[in-house]
C-alpha cells in the first residue's frame, strides 16, 4: 500500500495543455475515482501516474518516493485497461504470470502466486483457456489477476467496466468493492460513469478541462456541489436548473423566477451585491414535490412519466423549461396532466453566472 501525490502536474501535447498544474493527494489504502466527461484529462492523469505518459511539469510521488521519471514497471503500480489488453496467444495462467515470467521468477513460484490469485478471483477452472474463450466478466477478472500477481502498492483502473453489459457491470462493481475491502490496496479508478464513482469510491475527484473541479466524498459532492458543472455531472437524472433573479430580503434572499414565481432562500453565506443579481437555482428531482395546479411555486404539464418500480420520474414542461420530479411509486400520472410544483428552498442551490455555487441553504 502507498499514497499517491501529484504536485503541480502539467501535461502538454505541443501547445495544447490537457492537464494544468494539478495537485492531488490520494490517501494510502483509499479508493479514489477520477470522474469527468470524455476529454477532461482523467485517463491522461492516470497514465501519468502509471508512467505511460511523460509528465510535462510537476512531480509524481508514490509512497513518498519521486517517480516522475521512473519506468512504469518500477513504480510498484499495476494497471487494468479498458480493453483488458490480455495477450491473445497466452493462456489465462500465462497471462496472469506474464510479469513474473519476464522477471525470470522460478516456475514453481509463478505457479504458486498464479494459483493464489486464481483462487481469490475464482479463475481456477479457466487457467488453461485463452482470452478468446472467456466471457467479458472472466476477461475482466483475468486482467485484475494479472495486476494482482505483481503485489502492487497502487492499483490503477482505466474505465475497466465500460465494455461490460449493465448486469455484469453491477456484478463486477460489487466484486471490485469486495476486492478493495479484502486487499486494502490504494486504488485509483477512472470513469465517466458517476454511478460507478459514487458506489465504489470513498473519494471522488471531478475533472473538467484538465483541472480539478471538486473533490470529496460521494455524498459531499452530491449534496454540496461547488459549481454548476459538478452539480450537473453528479446525480441521475441530473439537477434541474432554473434561471432566476435574486435580491436581498429581510431574512436572506428572494429568488424570483421568470414569470413571477418566487422562492425564499436562506443561504449560510452569499456574496455581497447591490440590487439584484442573475443566478441559476439548482434543485434535484427528489427535492421537488407535486401538488395541485396553482398550489406550488410553478405550474406545468406532465410530458413523460417513467416508472422504475421503486420510484418514478415525471418530466414537466413549465414556463421556466423542463423540470424533472422524483415521486414515489404510488403516484399515477399521464402525459398532459396539469401539475403544480413545490421546490424545497432548504435544498436549493444557487449558482452565479460564472457557475460557482454559493454556500448551501440554512435548514429551515
Amino acid at each position, binding site marked *: 500500500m502507498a499514497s499517491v501525490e501529484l504536485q503541480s502536474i502539467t501535461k502538454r501535447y505541443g501547445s495544447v495543455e490537457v492537464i494544468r498544474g494539478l495537485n492531488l493527494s490520494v490517501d494510502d489504502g483509499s479508493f479514489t475515482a477520477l470522474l469527468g466527461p470524455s476529454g477532461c484529462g482523467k485517463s491522461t492523469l492516470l497514465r501519468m501516474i*502509471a508512467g*505511460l505518459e511523460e509528465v510535462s511539469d510537476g512531480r509524481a510521488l508514490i509512497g513518498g518516493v519521486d517517480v516522475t521519471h521512473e519506468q*512504469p*514497471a518500477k513504480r510498484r*503500480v*499495476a*494497471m487494468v*485497461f*479498458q*480493453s*483488458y*489488453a490480455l*495477450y*491473445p*496467444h497466452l493462456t489465462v495462467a500465462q497471462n496472469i504470470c*506474464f*510479469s513474473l515470467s*519476464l*522477471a525470470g521468477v522460478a516456475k514453481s513460484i509463478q505457479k504458486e502466486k498464479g494459483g493464489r490469485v486464481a483462487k481469490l478471483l475464482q479463475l481456477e477452472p479457466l487457467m488453461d483457456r485463452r482470452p478468446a474463450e472467456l466471457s467479458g466478466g472472466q476477461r475482466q477478472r483475468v486482467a485484475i489477476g*494479472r495486476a494482482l500477481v*505483481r503485489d502492487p502498492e497502487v492499483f490503477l483502473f482505466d474505465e475497466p467496466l465500460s465494455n461490460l453489459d449493465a448486469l455484469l457491470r453491477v456484478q463486477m462493481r460489487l466484486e471490485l468493492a469486495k476486492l478493495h475491502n479484502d486487499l486494502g490496496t490504494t486504488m485509483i479508478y477512472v470513469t465517466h460513469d458517476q454511478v460507478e464513482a459514487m458506489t465504489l469510491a470513498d473519494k471522488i475527484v471531478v475533472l473538467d478541462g484538465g483541472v480539478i473541479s471538486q473533490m470529496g466524498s460521494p455524498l459531499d459532492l452530491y449534496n454540496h456541489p461547488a459549481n454548476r458543472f459538478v452539480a450537473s455531472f453528479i446525480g441521475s437524472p441530473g439537477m434541474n436548473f432554473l434561471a432566476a433573479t435574486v435580491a436581498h430580503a429581510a431574512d436572506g434572499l428572494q429568488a424570483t423566477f421568470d414569470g413571477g414565481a418566487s422562492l425564499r432562500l436562506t443561504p449560510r453565506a452569499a456574496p455581497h451585491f447591490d440590487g439584484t443579481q442573475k443566478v441559476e437555482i439548482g434543485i434535484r428531482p427528489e427535492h421537488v414535490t407535486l401538488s395541485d395546479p396553482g398550489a406550488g411555486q410553478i405550474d406545468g404539464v406532465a410530458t413523460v412519466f417513467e416508472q422504475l418500480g421503486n420510484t418514478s420520474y415525471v418530466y414537466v414542461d413549465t414556463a421556466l423549461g423542463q423540470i424533472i420530479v422524483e415521486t414515489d411509486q404510488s403516484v399515477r400520472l399521464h402525459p398532459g396532466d396539469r401539475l403544480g410544483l413545490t421546490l424545497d428552498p432548504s435544498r436549493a442551490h444557487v449558482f452565479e453566472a460564472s457557475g460557482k455555487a454559493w454556500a448551501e441553504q440554512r435548514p429551515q
Partner: protein
Amino acid sequence: MTTVATRSATEMSRPARRFGIGRILLTLLTLIAAAIWFLPIYWAIVTSLRSDADTVREFTLLPSSPTISGYIYGITNSQLPVWYLNSTITSVVITVVAVLVSAMTGYAISQLRFPGRNLLWWTILASFMIPVPALIVNHFVIIADVKLLNTHAGIILPMLLTPVTVIVYKGFFDGLPREYREAAVMDGANPYQLFYRVFLPMNWGVTTAMAIITFIGAWNSFLWPFLVAQNVQMMTVAVGITTVQDAFGVAYGRVLAGAVMASLPVALAYLLFQRRVTQAIALSAGIKG
C-alpha cells in the same frame, strides 16, 4: 398461418437457389477453368512417365507404356540431390532471415520512435518504384566484386530484401491496440521481450503465412540463381533441371521428370498450408509492385 406460409415459401426457394440454371452454368464454367489450369500439370506428369519415343509418336491422354526412366535418369545422371540440398539451404535461410528481419523492421517502424524512422519507411516504400530485373546487373557486379559468385551467400544475400513483408508486418503492428504494448511495459517487458514475447507471437498467423510464401518464392526463383550459380555443384533445382538434356536435344520425359521433382516440395507446401498461402496472398495483394 402467416408464419407457416412464409416458411414454406422460404423452403421452396432454397432448392431452386441450389439448383438454379445460373448456378449450374457457373459450376460448369469453374470446372472448365479448373481443367484448363490443370491440363499443363497433367501433361507434365504424364509426359514425365513416357519414353522419349512415345512422347513424339502421338498424343494420348495416358502413356501407352508408363516408365519412370526419366526420374531414374534425373536422380542417377544429374546432380539433382545436390541441387535439392542447395535449394533447401538457400530457401530456408532466405525464409528465416527475410521474415525475421522484415518483422523486426516492421515492428521498429510501427512501434518505435527514432530519428530517420520516416526516411526508412519512405525508402522501403520507394523501393517498389524500381523493378527487380533493373537491379540484377548491379547485384551481379557487387556479388562478383565481393567474390561471392557460386556460393550460397551469393544466392541468398540479394534475396533477403523483401519490402512486401515489411509492409505487411508494419500494417499488422500498426493495427494492434496500444494497450498490449502498454500492458507489457507495465509488466516489465524490455524492448526485446516486447518484440519476441508479445508482438511476434501475437502475429503468428502472419508470420506463418509470410514464411510459406517467402519459401515458395525462394524455391521457385530462377533468374538470380541462374546468373550467380554457374557451377553445376552450386545450382538450385530450378536452375539445374534446365541442364537435363542430352546430345540429341531436349529430352521431354527427363526434363519434365526433373520439373515434377523440383516442384514437389512447393506443391506439398501448397497442399499442407493451403489456407495460410491464400492468407499470405491476400495480405500482400495490392502491395506487390
